[in-house]
């Protein structure tokens, strides 16, 4: 089981900001591939088809409309973005070789790599990039989440054939992270109209077919620009066939019977037994996915009263969740970034499990028996189970809790209307901290408005400043202060880390997930995987 630590993020970021020359960046690329070079020396065989047992099926092929999650959807390997990831989670060059902001961080110029082609042979030029951004920002063609991810991009401007400038709505250092392939995927403009049937991207694999619930076929894109340290063209695999198997036990069985060679997640309950019985026969990786937390609604409901929020937080025993829902995997957490990650904040205090104190507070506030409706998405198993534990814990101190499991559309409606007292919410790992601290809690963020709807002057100030701060140490200090405010005011009560475990047959070589589970990243992941028989 490999858990990668992100150690060198500071250095690389600063290098990029200083508008590194081609030399510095090439050097960096080589460094990024250093880990893979050892694998490359094993003479990877070109060819082979990977059968991928996926936990979900795509809901649609248009990448501007349907989120193709880069840690689980096979289709995600069809796309790359302006920037890319490395194994450790740093932002590295992708379709753009380099980029620099202007003095006050209100616009960024991206220098595109030359000779990169879309799957249909069209060259990736500044015009194409511009059209992509326009399409995503248009509510008719861009999906809600995708638009939210580039909410800070005002518009794109073509400078010359291979240079594009992105204007920011507000000064921000997050631009490079926002144009990575998660969340922003580039597609060929001349294929926009047929995107729902045959999407054209820039990634190492290109689309062949999609039969819903049955399979997704992709094959190697021969003109993919990336190479490994020895100059071999990536990717090595001939084709990837994604087979959606929603049932975790069915998926795991498919792996064990050889029907699939790779599964992206398995049920939490199966992890330990699988490790015990099969760690010699399969590769197993555990990786950080994000976090899970309780949201307290400030817009209506009983939790507008700080005493009740405090009582509820004291009532929650993270240990119970750790064992009942996660079977001891992952770590209890009081903040989104795990230990070892450069954005893990020091000196954070959060409320301890103290049911007696919770009961006392409720009694004092004459709020014993307060009715609470706990919202959760019905199809999210981990969330549901956590909601049940939280319900039990809150009921034990005197709340009257009803769990409200809603399907996707009514759930979104409930969030928008604020029709809940508290909810169980998750977050996926974000490569830039503003995507968590800003997006989820900054009062002017659209998303934050449908979560807790909390508003705090000082917090907003800190977030705005942190957005403009280049120096990571100073940024970190600001987020620390901000998160401490959040822990005092309790719009959120962070519960636990979300981890997942993926597994592959021994025949799959050269693969390692990104530190946050990315399936493909610069010089690695599925781009550098190969099959031995």
């Amino acid at each position, binding site marked *: 089981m490999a858990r990668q630590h992100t150690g060198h993020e500071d250095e690389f970021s600063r290098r990029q900001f200083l508008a590194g020359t081609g030399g510095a960046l090439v050097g960096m690329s080589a460094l990024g591939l250093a880990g893979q070079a050892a694998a490359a020396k094993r003479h990877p065989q070109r060819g082979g088809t990977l059968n991928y047992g996926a936990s979900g099926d795509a809901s649609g092929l248009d990448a501007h409309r349907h989120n193709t999650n880069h840690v689980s959807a096979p289709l995600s390997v069809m796309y790359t973005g302006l920037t890319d990831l490395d194994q450790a989670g740093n932002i590295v060059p992708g379709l753009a070789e380099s980029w620099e902001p202007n003095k006050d961080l209100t616009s960024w110029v991206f220098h595109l790599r030359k000779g990169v082609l879309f799957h249909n042979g069209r060259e990736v030029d500044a015009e194409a990039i511009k059209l992509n951004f326009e399409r995503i920002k248009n509510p008719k063609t861009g999906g809600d989440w995708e638009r939210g991810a580039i909410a800070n991009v005002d518009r794109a401007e073509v400078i010359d054939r291979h240079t594009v400038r992105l204007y920011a709505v507000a000064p921000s250092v997050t631009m490079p992270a926002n144009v990575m392939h998660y969340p922003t995927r580039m597609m060929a403009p001349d294929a926009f109209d047929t995107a729902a049937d045959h999407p054209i991207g820039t990634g190492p694999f290109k689309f062949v077919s999609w039969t819903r619930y049955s399979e997704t076929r992709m094959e190697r894109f021969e003109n993919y620009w990336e190479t490994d340290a020895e100059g071999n063209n990536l990717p090595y695999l001939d084709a990837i066939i994604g087979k959606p198997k929603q049932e975790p*036990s069915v998926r795991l069985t498919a792996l064990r019977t050889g029907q699939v060679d790779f599964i992206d997640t398995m049920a939490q309950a199966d992890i330990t037994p699988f490790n015990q019985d099969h760690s010699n026969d399969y590769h197993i990786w555990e990786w950080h996915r994000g976090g899970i937390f309780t949201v307290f609604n400030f817009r209506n409901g009983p939790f507008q009263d700080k005493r009740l929020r405090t009582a509820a937080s004291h009532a929650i025993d993270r240990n119970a969740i750790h064992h009942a829902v996660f079977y001891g995997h992952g770590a209890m957490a009081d903040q989104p970034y795990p230990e070892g990650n450069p954005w893990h904040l020091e000196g954070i205090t959060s409320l301890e499990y103290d049911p007696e104190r919770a009961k006392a507070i409720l009694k004092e506030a004459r709020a014993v028996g307060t009715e609470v409706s706990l919202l959760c998405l019905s*199809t999210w198993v981990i969330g549901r189970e956590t909601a049940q534990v939280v319900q039990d814990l809150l009921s034990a101190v005197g709340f009257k809790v009803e769990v409200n499991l809603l399907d996707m559309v009514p759930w979104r409606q409930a969030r928008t209307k604020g029709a809940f007292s508290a909810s169980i919410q998750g977050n996926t790992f974000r490569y830039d901290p503003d995507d968590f601290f800003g997006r989820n809690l900054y009062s002017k963020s659209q998303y934050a408005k449908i979560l807790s709807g909390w508003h705090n002057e000082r917090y907003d100030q800190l977030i705005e400043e942190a957005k403009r701060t280049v120096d990571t140490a100073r940024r970190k200090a600001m987020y620390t202060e901000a998160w401490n405010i959040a822990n005092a005011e309790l719009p959120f009560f962070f519960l636990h880390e979300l981890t997942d475990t993926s597994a592959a047959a021994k025949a799959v070589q050269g693969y390692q997930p990104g530190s946050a589970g990315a399936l493909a990243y610069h010089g690695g992941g599925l781009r550098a995987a190969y099959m031995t028989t």
Partner: protein
Amino acid sequence: MARASITSTPEGFDFETADLARLSPKIRLWRGLKEAAWELWRNRLASIGAAMVIILFLVAIFAPVLATHNPVKQNYREMLQTPSEAHYFGTDKFGRDIWSRTVWGARRLVIIAVLAVCLGMLGGIPLGAISGYFGGKLDAVLMRVVDAWLAFPGILFYLLAASFIRAYELSLFWNTVGLIVALGAARMPSMARLVRGSVLAEREKEYVEASHVIGESHLYIVFRQILPNCLSPVIIQATIALGFELLIITSLSFLGLGAPPPTPDWGADLNLAREHMVTRPYLAIFPGLAISYAVLGFNLFGDGLRDMLDPRIADR
């Protein structure tokens, strides 16, 4: 046109007893014993069924007494335990006692199933009776409606209904009421069809004609005279329907459309148990057995009723 042929049988003629007369006393005795054993077995199955149903109702009624623990209280120190003296059926992943959950689950399930079938009868019987009795255009129209009703793909009707109910964020009570209404509505067309068939057969009979002549109102004839004679197939159907209703309810809960957690629910518990199929199969066995037990009881009882009330069925 019905043709007289060697394949037609005069009603009521019992070949078997006619056979017996020709055979020796010893064989007759043996046959007689077998007959008795069979009757006992058939009735035994029926009485076993009746007993099972009665036990089920008793468990549902006395759930608070029979349960050993609070069925919704979680206990993180006792998660996933195997069956033991303290926990007869073991504990689930939240440390809840499975025996208590099974016992309480019976209550909700039985209430919903009974009410749903009653609702189905309440709606279906008048519909079928009126359609069968008056016949003609009314019958044609009503039967088309029933056909359309039945053509609606089965479980999807329930799925739609359940999604509907859940989306309104209702309290547990209204949630349950909605489910009962949906199930009852789905049960009505088959009831209607059944009653219509019986009424059609009955209305040609003499006593109906006699009532007409006397001048009794149609309503009186249908509801006070014809229907009581049609009751037996309805009762049999209702009993068996109860069993199937249980299966439908648990299937819905299994798909996640039942009562919100942590209400004890056999289908939902089975769903939870899926994670642990390999490591802890007992988690899935008990709720599954409970469901099978309940449905089996109703089926056996229904069969037994059919034997008693409808002697023409060739299963002697």
